[in-house]
């Protein structure tokens, strides 16, 4: 026994036996990150397997449930055969392996919530945070730990179930690609749930709150499994499940980015309450909308707040611009493939001009028409911004791309039918000069609002980052987009028709 009274031995206790310099790490960054993450994973997995609340359901779902499912399948098969519906069996049999695989994977959600927020709740996280492990290493280590045991259980469950069908009285011989498809779907679903659970956990301080928030993951994933089942029973449409897997993989990448950014020491220790602080939230939002020091004036607002906000959107605006061009090209390509029979219309430019004139006369110069045009654009852009919040910014891109795709399609139709393309340009350019920048800016602000949580700036908590992005979207909406849309609306109703008229005449 070492005693304090034994100075020679006490040195070893004090630490002289170990040099207190930082050892040089020769490993590559990736190897180091994975190796450190696996230290965390090993501990977490070992801990999970000591928890009977995790081991028991995994055991039941891995071995007992597949065997019960086999019994049930036999009963169903018997019923189908008895009623002459056995041709339906090849469509229905793959359903059960999906379910058998899904149940153990759902445990990954429980483990993920436990490993992330449970540790926070038990206050065992801070000692871990004070070690040299990076946020990414901790995040990956815990994510692996949440995923590996349920995934292994899921694969085992599927293998046990399918083996039962293959070796039992059914002698079922599913195509290998079907098994691979089921395993891939199971894997990406586990990834979605774990990465989603990390995001949920980072926003709560208790497992209770995390479990409540978990419905945001469980419900969509359950709906997804139901949707996949609908596809699965239609063998000729099963190829769609690869696209579903790919889509889920994209969601995983976005959630991983979001989780890796949110899972940081600042965010984990800075959040001590689950309570909504509306007042502070409003203050942050208002300060971002206002964005000026001292007394407010309109020129100062544009100079100090609006223009810098536009500057900060250059990356998002570039993405939106690329999408617009891509939509035009895609529309044009589709236009070349699927032609409208315009050349059979037997109309000359004179009759077109007369038709247009009658059309314009319906509401020419009406303030109601201007308002309707403006409101239509406002509605679409506002909807895009709202949808951005729940789609990582994908929805506004789709909404922005759609009309440009249609324009590309129509332009090719018109050009192909011998009508002068300048007419299309005349119908778009006058108001487009104002409308397109408004769409570009609004789309960029919405894209950033939706995607910023996947990569929030360092040193800022997620809620503040999001509120500031919302503030930017709102002020640009009011300060730039709305005025541009009003001008575009006026142009579209009062100027564009005359320009088309001139071109046609």
């Amino acid at each position, binding site marked *: *026994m*070492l*005693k*304090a009274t034994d100075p020679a*031995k*006490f*040195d*070893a*206790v*004090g*630490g*002289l*036996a*170990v*040099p*207190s310099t*930082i*050892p040089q*790490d020769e490993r590559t960054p990736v190897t180091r990150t994975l190796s*450190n993450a696996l*230290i*965390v994973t090993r*501990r977490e997995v*070992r*801990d999970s397997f*000591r*928890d009977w609340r995790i081991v028991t359901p995994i055991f039941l779902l891995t071995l007992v449930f597949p065997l019960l499912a086999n019994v049930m399948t036999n009963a169903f098969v018997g019923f189908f055969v008895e009623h002459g519906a056995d041709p339906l069996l090849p469509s229905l049999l793959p359903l059960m392996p999906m379910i058998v695989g899904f149940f153990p994977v759902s445990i990954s959600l429980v483990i993920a919530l436990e490993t992330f927020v449970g540790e926070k709740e*038990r*206050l*065992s*996280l*801070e*000692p*871990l*945070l*004070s*070690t*040299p*492990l*990076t946020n990414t290493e901790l995040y990956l280590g815990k994510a692996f730990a949440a995923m590996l045991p349920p995934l292994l259980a899921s694969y085992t469950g599927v293998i046990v179930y399918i083996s039962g069908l293959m070796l039992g009285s059914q002698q079922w011989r599913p195509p290998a690609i079907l098994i691979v498809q089921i395993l891939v779907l199971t894997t990406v679903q586990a990834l979605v749930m774990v990465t989603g659970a990390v995001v949920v956990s980072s926003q709560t301080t208790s497992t209770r709150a995390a479990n409540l928030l978990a419905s945001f993951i469980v419900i969509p994933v359950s709906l997804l499994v139901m949707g996949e089942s609908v596809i699965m029973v239609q063998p000729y449409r099963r190829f769609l499940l690869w696209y579903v897997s790919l889509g889920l993989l994209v969601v995983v990448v976005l959630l991983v980015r979001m989780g890796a950014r949110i899972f940081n*020491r*600042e965010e984990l*220790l*800075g959040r001590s309450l689950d309570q909504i*602080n509306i007042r*502070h939230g409003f*203050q*942050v939002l208002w300060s971002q909308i206002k964005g000026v020091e001292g007394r407010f004036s309109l020129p100062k607002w544009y100079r100090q707040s609006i223009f810098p906000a536009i500057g900060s959107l250059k990356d998002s605006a570039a993405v939106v611009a690329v999408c617009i061009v891509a939509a035009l090209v895609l529309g044009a390509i589709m236009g070349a493939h699927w032609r409208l029979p315009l050349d059979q219309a037997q109309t000359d430019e004179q009759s077109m001009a007369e038709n247009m004139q009658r059309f314009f006369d319906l509401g020419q110069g009406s303030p109601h028409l201007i308002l309707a045009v403006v409101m239509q654009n406002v509605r679409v852009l506002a909807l895009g911004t709202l949808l951005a919040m729940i789609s990582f910014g994908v929805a506004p891109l789709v909404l922005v791309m759609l009309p440009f795709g249609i324009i590309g399609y129509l332009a090719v139709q018109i050009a192909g039918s011998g009508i002068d393309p300048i007419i299309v340009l005349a119908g778009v350019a006058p108001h487009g000069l104002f409308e397109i920048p408004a769409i570009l800016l609004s789309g960029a602000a919405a894209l950033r609002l939706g995607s910023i949580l996947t990569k929030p700036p360092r*040193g800022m908590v997620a809620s*503040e980052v999001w509120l500031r992005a919302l503030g930017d979207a709102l002020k640009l909406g009011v300060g730039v987009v709305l005025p541009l849309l009003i001008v575009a609306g006026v142009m579209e109703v009062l100027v564009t028709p005359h320009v088309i008229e001139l071109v046609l005449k």
Partner: protein
Amino acid sequence: MIETHELTKRYGDFLAVDRVTLSVEAGAIFAILGPNGAGKTTTVRMLTSILQPTSGWARVAGYDVAQDPIKVRSIVGVLTEQHGLYERMKGIEYLDFFAQVYHLPDDVRRTRPYELMEYFGLGDALDRRLGAYSKGMKQKLALVRAMLHDPTVLLLDEPTSAMDPQSAKLVRDAIRELRREERTVAITTHNLAEAQTLADRIAVMRRGRIIANGTFRELSQRFAGLPLMEVRLDQALNGALGELRGMVEVSDQGDTWLRYRTPQPDTDNPDVVRRLTGLGFGIVTLSEVSRTLEDVYLQIVHEDEGHEHDAQSD
């Protein structure tokens, strides 16, 4: 070894740490005192690179906490306020996990947990699950974890809380030993007697600010006045007090005793003794009235509350 300049941490509107400037040299034990919510834990978290300063800077063993967080965390050992152990793990598994995290060489990983656990009297508990440890045992294990990688700087939050007197002494001895090895130890504690016994320097925090900083003697003089001496005599004073006026500031008196304050006890005490013996008094005892850190601390906090009240009135 630890240096901070205008270190500040803000959460929205809430100022958790307000322009803290500190300097602690190698081999010193530094105590941070203060009421709950004073900003002690946030300061320690910034020194451990767990939290990023909002403004200002801090360096630990020459590494900037914001620029080199991994290096800082590699050389700092932290005993957190809540030791938060993994209850399903055994003592040895727990320490081995942290030994891996700190990348201790294999030979050290095999021996050091045993040595430290033996020293703290937990040698027999290594194979027990942590859930079965008593509160004091858990605290000691958490301390072992903090010392496992031989840190240059130790940041200890309430290191002896929940410990029996014997264990607490063991820990205090270990901390003193660390000082002997030129390691720097910063302690945040509510145990003022412990801080007085251990610390070379003491800082008092309140509302995120350092309101006092110095050695116990310096703080004592600044906030509790000049050293207070007490003389006990063999007979009643009977008006002889006037003979001492002009020499020292008499603060209190009884029939056969008196108390006085002096800035220079080394020179004034012999003069007082000479004068009193010259007047025919026999000196029974002459001693300094001891002041505890608790007295000084309460005075510091009281004065700060007064300043705050004045500022609010203005």
